[in-house]
């Protein structure tokens, strides 16, 4: 940063143009500095965990048994199948276990 060169993963930054290509500057809060990090994945991009996806999305592997690979998809409306709370637009998934899907509230 001091040399004007873009910085890599985990380095401090104030704006995304300070980070190496492919990284974004994730801020601690609206005012503060942040760290260069990978951006969240957009709808349709591959994922293996919902935390890779943008906050409004979840990972489609949740809806298929023993499936590791999925893509970031929209959260589901009420009554549709879900695995974790994040899968639901309401933020509440009921009845899901490690073995079976539940339903969005």
């Amino acid at each position: 940063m001091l040399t004007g060169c873009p910085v890599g993963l985990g380095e401090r930054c104030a704006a995304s143009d300070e980070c190496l290509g492919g990284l974004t500057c994730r801020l601690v809060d609206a005012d503060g500095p942040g760290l260069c990090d990978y951006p969240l994945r957009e709808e349709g991009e591959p994922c293996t965990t919902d935390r890779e996806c943008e906050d409004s999305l979840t990972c489609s592997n949740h809806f298929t048994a023993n499936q590791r690979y999925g893509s970031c998809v929209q959260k589901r409306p009420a009554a549709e199948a879900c695995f974790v709370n994040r899968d639901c637009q309401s933020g509440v998934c009921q009845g899901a276990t490690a073995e079976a899907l539940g339903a969005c509230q």
Partner: protein
Amino acid sequence: MLLAVTSLSADGGTAPVGPESTVTAPSPDHGPPGADPEPESTVTAPSPDRGAPGANPAPESTVTVPTSDRGPPGADPDPESPLTTVVTSTRSERDPMEQPRAVTVLRAEDLARRGARTTPEALLESEGVFLQRTNPGGGAPILRGLLGQHILLLVDGVRLNNATVRSGPNQFLNTVDPFSVEQLEVVRGPGSVLYGSDALGGVVNVRTFQPRFHSELTPSLLLRGQGGTADTSLQGHLRAGVSLRDTAVAAAITGRDFNDLTGGGQVGLQHYTAYEEADATVKLRQRLGFGTELQLQYQGVRQSNAPRLDRSTPGDFRRFSDQERDLGHLRLVSRGPGLFRQLSLDLSLHRQGDVTDRFRISRDRIESDTATVWTSGLRAEGTLPVTLWGLGSGDLVVGGDAYYDRVLSGFTRLSISDPDTVQGRPQDARYPGAPTALSGGLFALLSTDQRRPIAYHLGLRGQANSTRLPEDSRLRDLFVSAAEPPPVFPATSVLTTGVAAEAGVRAHLAGGLQALVNLGTGFRAPNVDDFLRLGAEGPGFVVPTRELHPEQSFTAEGGLRWVHAQARVQAFYAFTTLPGLIGNAPTAVDGQTLNPDGLPYLIHQNRDQASIHAVELSAEVQPLPTLRLGGHLGWTHGTQVLRDLTDPAQPLIREPLSRIPPLNGTARVTYDPFSFLFLEGVFRGATAQTRLSGSDRLDTRMCAEAPGCTGTPAFGVLHARVGTRWKNLSASLSFQNLTDATYRTHGSGVDEAGRSVVLSLEGKL
């Protein structure tokens, strides 16, 4: 076909291959090491009967043994390379096919052909070895169902395992520069007699390059480059040496830059997989006269910014920010006509350190966890020629070793928004209070002449271990307000002993067939990590315990080996029982089974019982002079019996052992139309692994974030390779994963490379 093999003097073509090699006397008139023998010609075989250098060699005795000298049958070896002999299983250089144990051997040429990015990756297609990788900066070999702290890793005979080798996979093998490897030797099965603690599942010994004396005809300059498209990686290696009559010096540097790894079609670019590394090696060999040689070496590794993929998501990610290793190693070897055929003394000082950072952006902090282990090592060893009534001649290897580990660790919390705010938190250190570990052992291994129709080996070791632990109140401090606060562990020294023994017989049957039967035991003393680990590890959050005792293994192994001019076939079956095997077990703290981050609490526990069946099959056939077919298959079945610590009232749990590999194997077709060209096709695959332990089911590396976990799916992947050699230049091109399959090996946290190319170039002067 059988070859006549003549015992020559010690230097007759058997080039030194590592600090563990025997000393070779100056001999300006011998041929280049590794020169390709003509069929039916005389080749050099390691001979326990051979005389000491400088002494008159024993009368040339012609014996008949199966041909099996180096590489696959009919392979055209690199003329610059030494003959393949294996030292790790008996401490005497012997042909791989004349070993009393099950061994796997890889040479530098094999690594180059396979386009191996790292030293662990070189083992991907090796018989009897299954490789687990949490991240591209890691790589843990699994031998006969065991990995991590149950596999002993050596570099040039010096222990990489130290007092902090943790339960589960580790990255230690990837702190050895693959471009410095001259030979990788894997002994499958227990190796505690010769090497002490940790060698339950096997021993992996990485032998790195050696400077050569003027008489040994070796390149004085070597330049190697390698690039791969899956991770847009670039690696470069420069090695230079000075070779005089009695002095040889060589130095090497390696730089490596790996970017994010692209997996198969379904997973695409895998974030949090890039890292960098720089390596340096300096070596000296000096003949001191009277058959004595001094060897000195320094190895340095600096690996940086290797993220932990399975524990990283945007906004909260972990990485091994610095992984460092420095080794200073002095070896004195003497061969002579006295009581001992060879005497050696090894002194080593090893520093292994890591800085593991967790970046928690929403909490405005970086948690930095550091650990450094200083290991001082001493090993003295002598080889006596012995004659046993009725059993012929043999070697008796006797020796002793001692290692002292001092562990330093710390923990700091840094603010992202205020770089000047650094908060030291020694109470959160991984290993508080500078714990130490001291071990000392004495061993003896007798092995009779392996060329006789029936050969025997018999070994014994006794070892004492002392681990000094500080007072530990961390768990109490974390749960001070609990209804039943956890105890404060007092400062103590834990004294344990380990005993290992091995015995075996190997019989040459008719038609090149050998039968082997081995019995062996291994042991491992609980280490500093077992007692003190507090924090995230593997699939959970580990809490410390003092209720551990040493592990012991008992292995019975039977094998058949058939060696023919056009074929080699090996089959081994091993049964291992491990009373007291240490592993992670779910537990409850303050009535909770999950910590605030949702990670299950785990504790190290001696299993009540564990047992493993392992079958290893391999074959190499050469139906035509230009065509070679090969393959191997490995199957493992492991079971453990443990207590349910979350509900002690429950009966004992009998379940699969953790991280047991599925049925897996490799098939290879190699076509050598000309001496300067090879073409190769490789299939590697594994069946699904559905046998999971309770701990495995909590691990996202084996159970995806989806319902109905049934384990790791099967995979099959195809690679194609082409390589050429012209004078001192060689090139190989590896087309990886032709079908762009999306797959990971069982237990891994990262998917293997998708369809991609690796190009390796090498030049020598």
